[in-house]
């Protein structure tokens, strides 16, 4: 299809500000007369707060907020599910600390240094309680309970055996189907806790307003959910709560919920009656959130001809001290599993368990990389054990066009309309030289190379034909200025992936206006309609879907006014970009001479006092089409040191029309490095005596890949499948999270191909590789 700006590589709208150091991130916000806040955090994994003595801190001039000073409201930081499906277990500051690093008391003072010293002067009397730090032990009878009761919506419910929530789904008759299978393969996979490591630590700034309201600048992926939750917690009318949209220094899911420090900062500001800024230290941030870990048992039944007939997945998730979004997570994990392959008759059982650890939240993929690691390692394992070719085995069983897609779990179902899986698997195989792949037993010597592949997908948003458990819609406002330039107002957060450009491009394309003449407005919750969140890879498909929808309305308005001027029926008009003059014109269909520029229309509309040409509306997408990916990678294992290198990686994606091709490539390559970290390096380990993180919150002992761990430029190849999503803006789907989902799985499969050892847990560190090699273990630990 021939587009004017869609699919073209154009400079980011925020690019110049970012390369000049002029972009404002939350941590850069300065408000006159502001105080600086810090928090006192629990040194114990489980302890009741008996008494807090803030007198010494107050003597230093600090303002303190204790658990007794915050509203009694119990909430879930993540408000994406409908209220009846939202599990609530936390207050702004708890009366019982449930993990090391949980904020208990907050302090604000004139400088950060004084605030920190005042915090150190606070005395807290704890009653130390026995902690549970292990998943299995947490569920055992007699284990200490984190909660006696929590809320599901408004309803009080009891918590048993520390099980936070669960989901069990059965389709057909798996027992019977397993009985018919020729092979049954079963294994357990373990994916650890991993820190998001977004480069900017979380920040909140709150200014109390003279009208009793608040203005908030905060690290978030969702300004509207933050606003609504703050309104509820502090009993403020929403008209008096304004949350500003800012740049964000990376997120990867870590700010999908309202960050824990935001309401704390608000409480401080309201008490101090002055603006307060809380910028967390890295160590506070590491103790604030983590990726959901998972222990996944998977059993699959296959026929001799390679047809899968039955499957059973049991997932246990150690969610830590609070539910951030564990109930929808369990549903999504079911969806990620159910929609990868046609399992025939299958079962899923997901259980989220409380422990006295840092609360887990979404991280790029929301359970999908975890499920993918299990399923895609398992597919490879089955192929090896049953003698199938791994690529053909996948092609035989994958869920594709015309199949039912579960996207975001059992309540969000739709039919797949575009799918590049076959193209990607064939292309990837060709590019990596799949045909020349040798089995592990033929490899000898110190350095052994292996080739592996895996595939995955993610949804583009959480839309569907009918409302489900998850809220999903987005809004936009578009305005034609009096000189024909365009302002786009979208509440959708750009996490760095280029959602902002995409919105501009979609508006520019619909209105046939040059990219340079469309700008994004600085907006907030007061000036925009609702958008649920930049999550679930929905920025382009849903957020820009709303922009597309509103731009069409603006276009109609333009036709109406132009019709009055040209004395034509609006329905007989057409938009075109006159490249030679660099202007956008409206002309009569089939008669270009009868024309007027849109700038002229806007100018005349003002002169004639017809009004501004603008529209505001919301849109819910009726689908959440899967964006597919595939990874073909080569690894080199040093069998003497256990070090795994990645000499080559081929990244394939099907995101429909790539609106920002360079940004799609950027997502794929960025995800390669994060996937590399997930597969080989990262885990936030606990000391099981003290309940503290072994790294103490310092990234000194929490390494992520540097530039040197990446393959060389020429050895990273990106390929886009040729698909068009009929329901997406200009044929687009998402990419963001999909890009990560099968990276670690592909690496694991490549490692198997190199050394004949399959790993069932990550990270696959040199220590583990060497131990497995020396143990002669065919199944790594």
């Amino acid at each position, binding site marked *: 299809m021939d587009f004017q700006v869609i699919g073209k*590589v154009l*400079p*980011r709208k*925020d*690019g*110049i*500000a*970012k*390369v*000049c*150091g*002029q*972009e*404002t*991130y939350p*941590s*850069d916000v*300065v408000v006159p007369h502001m105080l600086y806040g810090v928090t006192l955090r629990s040194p114990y994994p489980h302890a009741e707060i008996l008494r807090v003595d803030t007198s010494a801190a107050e003597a230093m001039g600090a303002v303190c907020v204790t658990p007794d000073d915050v509203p009694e409201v119990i909430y879930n930081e993540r408000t994406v599910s409908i209220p009846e499906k939202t599990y609530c277990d936390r207050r702004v500051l708890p009366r019982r600390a449930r993990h090391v690093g949980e904020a208990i008391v907050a302090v604000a003072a004139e400088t*950060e*240094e004084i605030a920190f010293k005042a915090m150190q002067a606070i005395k807290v009397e704890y009653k130390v309680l026995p902690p549970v730090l292990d998943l299995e032990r947490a569920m055992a009878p007699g284990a200490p309970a984190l909660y006696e009761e929590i809320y599901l919506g408004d309803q009080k419910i009891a918590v048993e055996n520390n099980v936070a929530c669960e989901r069990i789904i059965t389709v057909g008759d798996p027992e019977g189907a397993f009985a018919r299978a020729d092979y049954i393969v079963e294994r357990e996979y373990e994916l650890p806790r991993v820190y*998001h*490591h*977004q*480069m*900017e*630590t979380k920040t909140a700034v709150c200014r109390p307003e003279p009208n009793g309201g608040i203005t908030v600048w905060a690290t978030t992926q969702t300004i509207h959910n933050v606003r609504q939750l703050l309104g509820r917690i502090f009993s403020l009318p929403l008209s008096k709560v304004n949350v500003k949209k800012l*740049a*964000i*220094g*990376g*997120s*990867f899911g870590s700010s999908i919920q309202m960050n824990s420090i935001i309401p704390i900062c608000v409480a401080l500001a309201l008490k101090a009656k002055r603006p307060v800024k809380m*910028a967390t*230290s*890295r160590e506070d941030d590491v103790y604030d959130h983590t990726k959901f870990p998972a222990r996944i048992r998977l059993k699959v039944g296959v026929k001799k001809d390679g047809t899968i007939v039955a499957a059973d997945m049991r997932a246990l998730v150690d969610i830590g001290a609070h539910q951030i979004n564990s109930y929808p997570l369990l549903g999504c994990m079911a969806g990620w599993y159910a929609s990868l392959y046609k399992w025939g008759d299958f079962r899923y059982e997901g259980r989220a368990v409380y422990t006295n650890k840092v609360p887990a939240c979404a991280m790029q993929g929301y359970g999908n990389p975890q499920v993918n690691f299990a399923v895609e390692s398992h597919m490879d394992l089955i192929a090896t054990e049953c003698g199938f070719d791994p690529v053909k085995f996948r092609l035989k069983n994958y869920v594709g066009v015309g199949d039912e897609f579960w996207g975001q779990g059992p309540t969000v179902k739709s039919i797949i309309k575009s799918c590049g899986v076959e193209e990607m698997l064939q292309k990837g195989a060709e590019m990596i030289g799949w045909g020349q792949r040798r089995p592990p037993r033929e490899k000898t010597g110190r350095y052994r190379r292996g080739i592996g592949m895996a595939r995955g997908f993610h949804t583009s948003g959480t839309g569907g034909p009918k409302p489900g458990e998850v809220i999903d819609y987005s809004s936009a406002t578009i305005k034609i200025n009096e000189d024909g330039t365009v302002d786009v107002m979208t509440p959708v957060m750009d*996490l*760095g*992936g*280029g959602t902002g450009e995409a919105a501009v491009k979609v508006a520019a394309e619909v209105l046939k206006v040059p990219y340079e003449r469309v700008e994004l407005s600085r907006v907030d919750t007061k000036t925009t309609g609702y958008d649920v969140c930049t999550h679930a890879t929905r920025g382009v498909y849903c957020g820009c879907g709303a922009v597309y929808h509103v731009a069409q309305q603006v276009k109609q308005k333009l036709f109406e006014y132009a019709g009055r001027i040209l004395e034509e029926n609006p329905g007989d008009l057409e938009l075109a970009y006159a490249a030679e003059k660099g202007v956008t014109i409206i002309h009569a269909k089939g008669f270009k001479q009868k024309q007027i520029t849109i700038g002229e229309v806007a100018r005349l509309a003002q002169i004639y006092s017809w009004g501004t040409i603008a529209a505001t509306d919301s849109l819910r997408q009726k689908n959440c089409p899967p964006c597919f990916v595939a990874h073909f990678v080569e690894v080199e294992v040093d069998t003497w040191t256990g070090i795994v290198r990645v000499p080559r990686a081929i990244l394939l994606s099907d995101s429909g029309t790539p609106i920002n091709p*360079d*940004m799609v*490539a*950027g997502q794929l*390559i*960025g*995800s*390669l*490095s*994060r996937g590399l970290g997930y597969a080989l390096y990262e885990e936030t380990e606990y000391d099981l005596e003290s309940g503290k993180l072994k790294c103490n919150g*310092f*990234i*000194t002992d929490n390494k*992520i890949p*540097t*530039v*040197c761990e*990446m393959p*060389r*430029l020429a050895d*990273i190849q990106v390929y886009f499948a040729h698909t068009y999503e009929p329901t997406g803006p200009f044929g687009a789907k998402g990419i963001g999270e999909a890009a990560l989902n099968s990276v670690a799985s592909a690496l694991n499969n490549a490692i198997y191909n190199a050394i004949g050892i399959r790993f069932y847990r990550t990270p696959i560190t040199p220590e583990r590789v060497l131990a497995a090699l020396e143990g002669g273990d065919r199944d790594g630990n």
Partner: protein
Amino acid sequence: MERQWVKLKVNGKERQLFIKPNELLLNVLRDELGLMGAKYGCGLGECAACTVLVNGQPMLACLILAVTMEGQEITTVEGMGDYDRLHPLQQSFLDHGAVQCGFCTPGMLLTAQALLAENPDPSEEEIRDYLRGNLCRCTGYAAIVRAVKEVKHPA
């Protein structure tokens, strides 16, 4: 703790600061001088988001006492170029999609600038080695390396 006067040059301008010895260069630049380009990422030397040039050499402002900078010349990303007169590296970062969230960008740019000053035509290997302390969680580095490699030198 007693404050003392410190004289230094920041982005070509003489500055006089009245500061306490325990103040970090990073916080002085940001809070006293309003130069927000250098970022806090870890405070422990591990991420290089706080990189500034001291006499042309990349250093980490989170581990520098500002008082020790008496008489030194400091360059932050704000001193590299203006929006209407971008430094070739800034332009190259834009051209090659090397910016996503942009939080690592100032540190990357300044480190790359020092590299090019030492070695105007570095190989990919040399770029990787020089930038290995600058963490980026978004881009996977490839676009950054390409931007440095293919920078268009001013004629």
